[in-house]
């Protein structure tokens, strides 16, 4: 799959959204956090409009503008009322075509970003989700760099650095998605979408290779600065895979925590009262998917949390799943249709995430693929990767060192 542009008309919507995705992120940026500062700066002012003028312009036309700097790709998205679509595209052209970088704005953006970093690192839950579990799963690989960067590097950024990175990113060819009422390819062309795309170069980035930690049953714990009542745990499984297999992990996530009848919810919350909010997530990239099962537990029950969660993950891959349970999980995995179809911006972002990772974006196709996965040998595909080097554990908050316990529990659950 190499879809470059998707334009989708939806008659139930009131607005139109357009999104651009560029293959730039914290994994490829030359200075940690520069990508985020650059995108924020570009959407704040241009050569022709200072920040107050741009803000007034956008508000008066009902145009919202968001940037989302990620680890492997970044997006710029706009949403507007249909009558102002040409203004929205014009402003995107201006943002891409004539940015202006100044020291004072950079300083303000940097200060704000440093505060955000401090905020994330002080809270045990977000420290685990944004940093610790990544380092446990991927060691020193650049994928562990958070898009907000680090304070020290951010403070050294200059307008010249931003100008240089801007020149680099506009050489890449973006992927485009547009969703809204009464749109089509020709209309979007007439409104200036092709001119916008023409402002970028034509370089496609090579597939990014992401490496695991290289350590069997890797363990990592970190104390957050803010005292916590709980231990926050993450048990991780790296899948080395390709785009066609990425949806397989969705079915596992759905069985583990996709709904109230999922295994983590029933066993960890319902039966054992171990945790208020246990859940599993998957982060998908070109050749890797990171599956994490996360939970908050009382510190004295952290070991039980590891034992129970790891056993649940393993059993879900090795036991025969009862048909009704599999059908429920399949329906939950397919509910993305419910979530994205009612908003132009959520649908646009969903399509961008799919086409950027080389996956099908059409909801009906995704549903069919999931049906096929559920009917196939999906457990074995994932189980083949249940190897010591792919399993890792991360913990933050209030805790005792559980390195040995983790290794013993994980080592005792073998395929």
């Amino acid at each position, binding site marked *: 799959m190499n879809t470059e542009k998707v334009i989708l008309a939806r*008659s*139930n*919507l*009131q*607005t139109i959204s357009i999104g651009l995705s560029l293959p730039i992120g914290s994994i490829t940026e030359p200075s940690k956090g520069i990508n985020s500062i650059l995108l924020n700066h570009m959407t*704040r002012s241009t050569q022709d409009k200072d*920040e*107050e003028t*741009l*803000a*007034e312009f*956008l*508000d*008066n036309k*009902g145009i919202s503008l968001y940037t989302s700097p990620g680890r492997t790709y970044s997006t710029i998205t706009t*949403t507007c*009322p249909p009558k102002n679509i040409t203004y929205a595209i014009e402003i995107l052209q201006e943002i891409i075509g004539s940015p202006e970088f100044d020291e004072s704005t950079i300083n*303000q*953006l940097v*200060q*704000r970003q440093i*505060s*955000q970093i*401090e*905020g994330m*690192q*002080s*809270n045990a*839950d977000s420290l685990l989700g944004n940093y610790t579990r990544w380092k446990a799963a991927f060691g020193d690989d650049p994928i562990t760099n958070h898009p907000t960067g680090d304070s020290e590097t951010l403070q050294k950024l200059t307008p010249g650095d931003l100008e240089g990175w801007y020149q680099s990113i506009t050489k890449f060819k973006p992927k485009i998605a547009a969703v809204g009422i009464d749109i089509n390819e020709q209309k979007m062309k007439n409104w200036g979408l092709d001119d916008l795309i023409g402002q970028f170069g034509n370089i496609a980035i090579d597939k990014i290779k992401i490496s695991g930690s290289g350590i069997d049953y890797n363990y990592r714990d970190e104390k957050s*600065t*803010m*005292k*916590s*009542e*709980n231990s926050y745990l993450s048990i991780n499984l790296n899948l080395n895979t390709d785009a066609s297999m990425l949806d397989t992990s969705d079915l596992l996530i759905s069985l583990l925590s*996709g*709904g*109230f*009848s999922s295994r983590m919810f*029933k066993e960890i*919350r319902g039966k054992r*009262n171990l*945790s*208020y*909010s246990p859940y599993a997530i998957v982060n998908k990239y070109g050749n890797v998917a990171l599956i994490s099962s996360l939970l*908050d537990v*009382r510190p004295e029950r952290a070991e039980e949390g590891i034992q129970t969660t790891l056993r649940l993950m393993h059993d879900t891959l090795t036991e025969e799943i009862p048909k*009704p349970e599999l059908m*429920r999980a399949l*329906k939950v995995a*397919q*509910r993305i*249709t*419910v*979530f994205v*179809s*009612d*908003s132009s*911006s959520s649908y646009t972002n969903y399509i961008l995430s799919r086409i950027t990772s080389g996956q099908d974006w059409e909801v009906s196709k995704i549903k069919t693929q999931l049906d096929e996965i559920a009917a196939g040998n999906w457990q074995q595909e994932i189980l083949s990767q249940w190897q010591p080097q792919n399993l890792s554990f991360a913990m933050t*908050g209030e805790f005792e060192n559980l390195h040995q316990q983790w290794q013993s529990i994980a080592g005792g659950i073998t395929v």
Partner: protein
Amino acid sequence: MSGFDVRKLKNGVPVLLAHYDEGETVTIGITYNVGGRNEWENKSLDGISHFLEHQFFKGNEHISPNEVLEKVDELGGMTNAFTMEDCTIYFSKCMSSELDNAISLWDELLTFGVISQEEFDKEAFVVRQEFRRAEDSPGNLIYRKVKKELFKNTSLEMDVIGTEESLSSMTLDQMERYRAKYYGMENCALLIVGNFDKEELFTKLNSTFGNKKFRDEKPKYQLTQYNIPKENKINVIRVEKETPLVFYDLAILTPGRKSKHYHAIELLSHLISLGRSSLIQQRLIRKGLCSYAYLYYNYYEDIGSLEFYAASSPHQIKESLDTTFILLHDVLTMEITSDTLAKLCDKIEYQVLSAFEDPSQLMQLQSIDYWRNGRFITLEDQMKAIRDVTIEDFDEVRQLILGNLQATLGVLGKSEDINFELTFPENTWKGEFIS
């Protein structure tokens, strides 16, 4: 949206049927006029409404806890619930083809049955764990402390999530009595928002929820009254927590939803906070003073507050707070023209267009607003009421709320970062900060 139809079931339960053409989803909401405010009569029950919200997912003698969970997931959408000071809302968002199943499920779940002691004990642990998570969140913690102080000695002072003590001592018997008192159909309204066949749906609702008992007397909670402040008085709460940022929440008392000033207060809050060109964005965010800052109008039926919530680095906290007060004082004194208000209304209209594109958002808004406003109201009528606010109304409201400040300021951070002296900046207000 092509239809906004308000009806009553045969037993008297009000129903909103809001039809969205051509959408694929539908959201059903069941809203009860019960929450933290009802717990005020017996403070040892602090948190029981929220606890009971969990308990409704435990089924009854006709449907086991496991069956409930499985049936919820079989809907294939999103089902959840939340509890506030004056309402508890249960909802399911699903494909339109599943609406019939969703109604049947909720009809069954909201049928009273025996709550088992075992399930009660299990869920007591879960809500206590939820409480502890809330304590870990600086934003949640400071909001709850400020609200308690701002509305001290009123029914709004109760903590919706409860306290460690109340959650540990509550009994099943108390819960059953509470449920019997507050969860009758006379205290309930239904909302169906999305794409559906209206008449077929109404028949189904009548044959399910319409058969439930509707008592004559609707339960009440203690209301309070907004008094115009005669002097500036800011109560200060300092919460020590090892955070790198300093969080602050300035809550200014205002009239509530049923006040004639409601729409003018909405305009005032949007002037401060709506969009990139708002005063908050200009002066606090783009100046790099706050990592985030926002203001919203937190209203109830009888009273409300303008909540100004922000986080700053310790070295910028004084400047951020001063800027916040100067900003608010400027709102009091700045020249506002009809043109300013008209442009603001345009911005609100754009926001409404985007925010309520998703039917489930409309359900959430209406399910809360219904109890505070006393009726369902279309977005068009809401916009008209906002556009009808005159300069005189607006001036009266800013004088009323900001002429003298009656507020609580909460500051959360490390001890050395929050124990500074508080004063009003020059050329703003004069008065006391009471710690």
